[in-house]
């Protein structure tokens, strides 16, 4: 039996577009079956994998329960599942998009509250004076509770909010909020400010593996293929190949560059992309040249760290 590797991908919104762009950039085109509203898909160039299109929240749940092997979703949603994330899922790669911060925001008019310590005092004061607890509107119960406990804030109540959390203080439904923000503009528009030490999580989209799913050797092999391509593309984006005539005889000089973070390649070195100019200048100053710098499409290493970690965690 060759059961496919199941990969969950966001089904809608900006995150879906970003995931598609990223996969396409890796040469892995997502093709949705059943029209644009379909919920099954496949990845061209990745045999043995089946793609499920789910909402970002459902992906976190599916990883948790082991219904899917791999999934792409926000770290904030993964952490909100409670308990010990590391025992249920393995974060394989931060994808650099879908960035959002989970923050504690209070009314701007609270000139006396800039930190969690201020909040603790105000909350206590409110309870002591009125017998009521300060209300916090959020849909991130687990992370709010853990963060507030870490800061010793105890005198509060959570008001569960399913949408438009940022409007809760203005509507009188809560005194403050814990919510996701990308630019902070929505918070400002609602008369709120982020506390100086009120950033709970700097979240971004993650490629994660479920540790509760059952993994066959075949599925691990498909995952390895995918991870190798992703890592190769990721490394390629951060690297440049520098070649110059007669570099084979430049052992001493190349040794110097390797010590500075480059790796040896035929006719030259592979170097971090942000060092292109610095290394080229160094070479030309020593009379080497012309130096040709070009960007590789993929850099496949012999080992694939993400896959090795995955195998280790799945097999034990």
């Amino acid at each position, binding site marked *: 039996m060759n059961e496919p590797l199941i990969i969950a991908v966001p089904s809608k919104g900006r995150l879906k577009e970003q995931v598609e762009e990223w996969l396409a950039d890796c040469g892995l085109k997502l093709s949705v079956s059943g029209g644009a509203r379909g919920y099954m898909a496949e990845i061209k160039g990745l045999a043995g994998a089946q793609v499920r299109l789910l909402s970002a929240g459902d992906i976190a749940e599916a990883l948790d329960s082991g219904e899917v092997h791999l999934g792409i979703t926000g770290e904030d949603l993964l952490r909100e599942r409670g308990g010990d994330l590391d025992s249920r899922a393995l974060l394989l790669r931060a994808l650099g998009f879908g960035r959002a911060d989970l923050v504690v925001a209070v*009314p701007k008019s*609270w000139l006396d509250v800039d930190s969690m310590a201020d909040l603790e005092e105000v909350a206590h004061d409110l309870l002591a004076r009125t017998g009521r607890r300060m209300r916090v509107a959020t849909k991130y119960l687990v992370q709010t509770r853990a963060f507030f406990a870490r800061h010793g804030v105890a005198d509060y*109540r959570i008001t569960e909010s399913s949408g438009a959390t940022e409007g809760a203080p203005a509507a009188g439904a809560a005194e403050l909020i814990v919510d996701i923000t990308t630019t902070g503009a929505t918070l400002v528009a609602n008369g709120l400010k982020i506390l100086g030490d009120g950033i709970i999580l700097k979240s971004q989209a993650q490629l994660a593996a479920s540790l509760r799913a059952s993994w066959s050797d075949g599925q691990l092999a498909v995952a390895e293929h995918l991870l190798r391509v992703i890592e190769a593309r990721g490394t390629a984006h951060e690297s440049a190949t520098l070649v110059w005539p007669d570099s084979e005889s430049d052992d001493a000089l190349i040794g110097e560059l390797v010590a500075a973070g480059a790796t040896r390649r035929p006719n030259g070195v592979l170097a971090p992309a942000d060092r292109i100019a610095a290394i080229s200048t160094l070479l030309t100053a020593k009379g080497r040249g012309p130096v040709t710098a070009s960007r590789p499409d993929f850099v496949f290493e012999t080992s694939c760290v993400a896959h090795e970690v995955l195998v280790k965690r799945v097999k034990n």
Partner: protein
Amino acid sequence: MRAEPRVPAEVLANLRAPLSRDALSVDAPILQPLGLLLELAGEAMRARLFVVQAEGGREACLRPDFTVPVTRQHLESGAASGRYYYEGKAFRASPDHPDRAEEFVQIGLERFDAIGTSALEADAEIAALAWKAAVAGGREDLLLWLGDLGLFAAFVEGLNLPTSLAARLTRAASRPRLLQAELARAGAQAKVVEGGALADLLAGRSSDEAAVMLEEVWALAGIEPVGGRGPAEIAQRLIRRTEAARAPTLSLEQAASLRRFLSISDTPVKALAAIRAIPGAKGEALTAALADWEQRLVLLTKAGVPAGAMLMATTLGHAFEYYDGLTFEVRSTALGADRPVAVGGRYDGLPARLEGPAGGRAVGCMVRPWRAFKGGEA
């Protein structure tokens, strides 16, 4: 959900006997209002609750203990005093300890006394009954641990600290992290406070004037006030915050005294002596609190708790926030500190928070029969 095995009926009867004597037997609804419990115990408790909801209904939770519902029943009866015994299952989620029962039997006693009644006799009686019930389970490795949240407050009062600092410390009593942060700050220089200028402007004004000024600041800064706190409240807190930040922190000597106080864990007689020996241990409140403890110990011994079975720890508290005076736990050496056989304490403040009359007295205890039973929890 993990339930625990049943305790043999004759063991249960022995356990029950000291608690049920002369007490009115009461029950409590298994479904409790979630909002009320969280309001009383705090959001941290949510993780331990089993929350249930009928379609379209209000959120409820399975009772995590009996103290709140029994207190409510007592208040509804309108009686000034009362003595209630209960027995039944309580439910607490334990996701981090997969081996622990989440559905377990509790037997307990709650005693309410009229305003003005002395607390000492009731404290000693209830702690002694909890001890007797626990011992009836047959274990021979039990110890009665005693603590007192009021003792910390009295000790802090004796240090003669600035009001805001004393208030912060008292508040931190049940929150180790805050307390450690405050101790770590000891000896630091007063901070230069941002926004201090505005606070200084507001400081000399009447409450109304300060509120008007703050509203003007909002208008100038283009701030639309949202949320329930008014300008007067914010202005006052701004002033207090600046004052507090400029006030000296704990001196190193005061911090050392507090650390010494918090580290005390010994036989009650030695513990009380150790408190008296701390430099800075003074003040009427502390003297009175220590004298009360001398008397409680006499009463406890008289009520049948062997002197050798008692220990006292200044940091003994409970995760639940009802308690505000005496606290105690019966611990088994085999089960350890985080699985007490019995717990209890004084919660005079709870009836008032449930809209009962202020000033009344309340003290209670709860025993877990399966933990007390010699052949039970291991």
